């Protein structure tokens, strides 16, 4: 059975996590989504998608939404793994004060899960106040710091920009840019069929791919991953190791997973990052540097 990708949506109370999840639920990404939320009441379900609803589960034609309480969260994730058919992607809404990293860690620990990123929603109006409140400042800032992808809801004001930058966050995106968020969190990076539609209209993100990577050692793989341009959100690669095996690489933010597979699948590399955070030139330079080292 294929592994279940898990993304965590974090952010303080009122930041707009549920709004964002509602948008993902109604998107036409074609995925069977499973979503764990804190509050059912705020979830909007298109009647056309609704199959049935009970006290703690809403069944959809394309997935399900389950309400969970903090203490049961990990077992609720286990329930999602046991669902038949297994969903394509699991989105966990962290509670308003929770540390999304503590939840996302299970995706690295559990072999049946695959880490698919932490997205933190920042309240563009109130964030400076929260970040300055000694009672909650540490936890609110940690929610942003651990994020692979930061989006800002409402109108980001100057004070919020200052607060974010003080926290080392230099790139963020609009929480209403659903196309970007879908691509970053849910988009399939298909190495065997790199998209050739770079010219087909404007996309809010940068995607780069190659289908002829040279053979490389594990040390070279590690070096490549360590130097991925900062704005790259995800990288998937199948690289020959020169000895008949394939390195399978999944990178999301700072989380890298390298395994080997023996079947000689088509090799290739796909890299994706939000526009503004990374450029094609940076990615090409990175790749050139490493292919030079490999040859």
């Amino acid at each position, binding site marked *: 059975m294929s592994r279940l990708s898990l993304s965590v949506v974090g952010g303080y109370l009122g930041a707009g996590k549920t709004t964002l999840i509602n948008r993902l639920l109604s998107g036409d990404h074609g995925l069977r989504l499973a979503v764990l939320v804190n509050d059912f009441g705020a979830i909007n379900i298109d009647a056309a998608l609704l199959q049935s609803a009970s006290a703690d589960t809403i069944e959809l034609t394309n997935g399900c939404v389950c309400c969970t309480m903090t203490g049961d969260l*990990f077992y609720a994730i286990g329930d999602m793994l046991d669902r038949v058919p297994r969903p394509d992607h699991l989105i966990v809404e962290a509670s308003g004060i929770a540390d999304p990293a503590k939840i996302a*860690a*299970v995706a690295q620990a559990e072999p049946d899960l695959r880490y698919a990123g932490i997205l933190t929603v920042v309240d563009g109006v109130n964030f400076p106040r929260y970040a300055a409140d000694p009672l909650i400042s540490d936890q609110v800032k940690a929610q942003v710091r651990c994020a692979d992808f930061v989006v800002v809801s409402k109108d980001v004001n100057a004070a919020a920009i200052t607060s974010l930058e003080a926290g080392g966050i230099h790139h963020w995106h609009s929480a209403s840019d659903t196309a970007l968020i879908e691509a970053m969190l849910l988009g399939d990076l298909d190495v065997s069929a790199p998209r050739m539609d770079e010219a087909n209209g404007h996309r809010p993100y940068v995607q780069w791919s190659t289908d002829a990577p040279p053979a490389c050692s594990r040390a070279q793989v590690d070096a490549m991953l360590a130097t991925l341009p900062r704005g790259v959100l995800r990288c998937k690669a199948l690289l020959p190791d020169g000895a008949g095996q394939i390195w399978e690489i999944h990178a999301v933010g700072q989380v890298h997973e390298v395994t080997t597979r023996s079947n000689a699948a088509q090799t290739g590399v796909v890299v994706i990052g939000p526009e503004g955070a990374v450029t094609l030139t940076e990615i090409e330079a990175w790749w050139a540097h490493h292919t030079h080292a490999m040859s």
Partner: protein
Amino acid sequence: MSDIRVFRARKIITMDPTQPEASHVAVRDGRILGLGDDTCGDAWGTVTHDDCLADAVVMPGFVEGHAHLMAGAMWAYTYVGFHDRIDPDGVQWQGVRDADAMIERLGAAVSTSPPEAPIFGWGFDPIFLTSERLNRTHLDQVSGDRPVAVLFSNFHLMCVNSAALAMAGYDASTNVQGVVKGPDGTPTGELQEMAAMFPVLRRMGIDFRTLSQSAEAIESYGKVAKRAGVTTITDLYSMLEDEDLDLMLRLTGAQDYPLRIVPALGASGVPQQVADKALALKARATDKLRLGAVKLMTDGSIQGWTARVRWPGYVGGQPNGIWNMAPEEIFAFTAEMQKRGVQMHIHVNGDEAAEVSLNALEAAARAHPWPGARHVLQHCQMMDRALFARAAELGVACNVFANHLWYFGDQHASLTIGPKRAARMDAVRTALSEGIVAAIHSDAPVTPLGPLFTAWCAVNRVTMSGNVLGKTECITVPEALELITMGAARTLRLDSEIGSISPGKRADFAVLGGDPLAVRAMDLKDVPVLGTVFGGHVHLS
């Protein structure tokens, strides 16, 4: 045959000042009809004299105001804690004092259990295993091929053997927060926090939800309580889904079930919905399942450095702890519960958590006056005189975690908050002098259920190393006995029904093998518990 039964006892300690002691108690319809001498029931009709308690000292059934249903269910697995404990069936389990003893204990489980059963130890505390940190090589001696796991007493860590590591796919290439690695780069077997523990728990089939809510767990809870002399107990942070509730109503409703359970619904999500659910639950309450309260988790634990503490913080310079519920959520929940008439049990370990919660309670009291609310701060470990005074002004009860003094007192003095603040921890004397509605508790299974031991802790304030932590906060034995009976009953707003042996109250008794008022204070914890009487039915061990 008469429906009046007159029990004779060696001594009855009533906890009712109008008649502190008696030799006989008359019971009808599960309630106390009268007390005094052997004629105490005669005025009501023909009586049956019952001498089955004639050699015992009888007290009001103990009331445990802070425990968790898991306390019974854990016994489905192998106890490997440092201290001696008695299981629900009365078997005394010796404390595990070193790694060899642990290997032997778990090895016995391997040989007596079916091959597919998980080998799962619980109750282990690394503080007491001083030679070397528990690691997979110890547990590999238990079994080379069956997965073996030992859960630490704090429920946040565990140690597993190589087979369990392999089962979860953990090896030298694993780079996961919480999977501890040794100098050689391989996992040591120690897994920290739920994310790292979960893959092993899942594959061993250990589900904490079932441990908190299954027929076996509820039955075990009844047995554990009976052996501790407890006739009313809480389950603080219950999920109470519909199917759980049906099960609990059915099992607790059985006439031979010896326990009244007071669950508190875990509060998370939306305050209004939680209040709706609490009130719907309240409508289904029975005598033995008292529903309607909620539990708020505000901060973490002091020994885990996750409690929210005020200046000057932790002595080791650790960052302040974490909120499990944001302060503004504490305010929102408190306001809604107060408005809707839902009693709250509010977990506060650190003094900052206590202060924020009192601020929230004060705001709620101004917005929605409810003089009889009797919300309860739970644990109250770092509350000083000023915080207790505020609680008293607001009519907020305090249930103090007295067992911590003995179990963690030394660590608090040396590692967490330092000797001065440790000496005023769990300040029961101060709480009483401020006129608080107070109780003391075990937080079982975090520490063992045993109100007499809890009372002993509050009376003596002795730590494991033999130090007395803050002598001025010691209380007397009669005061401590009051806290584990009437005090706890008042925190549950059940003091008109239980907590003392008074005419009209429920005939719930703790049956003791000695007189707690006659032994030395240091021997209070050793007074034997023979069983209980619940609603007039005798349940001796």
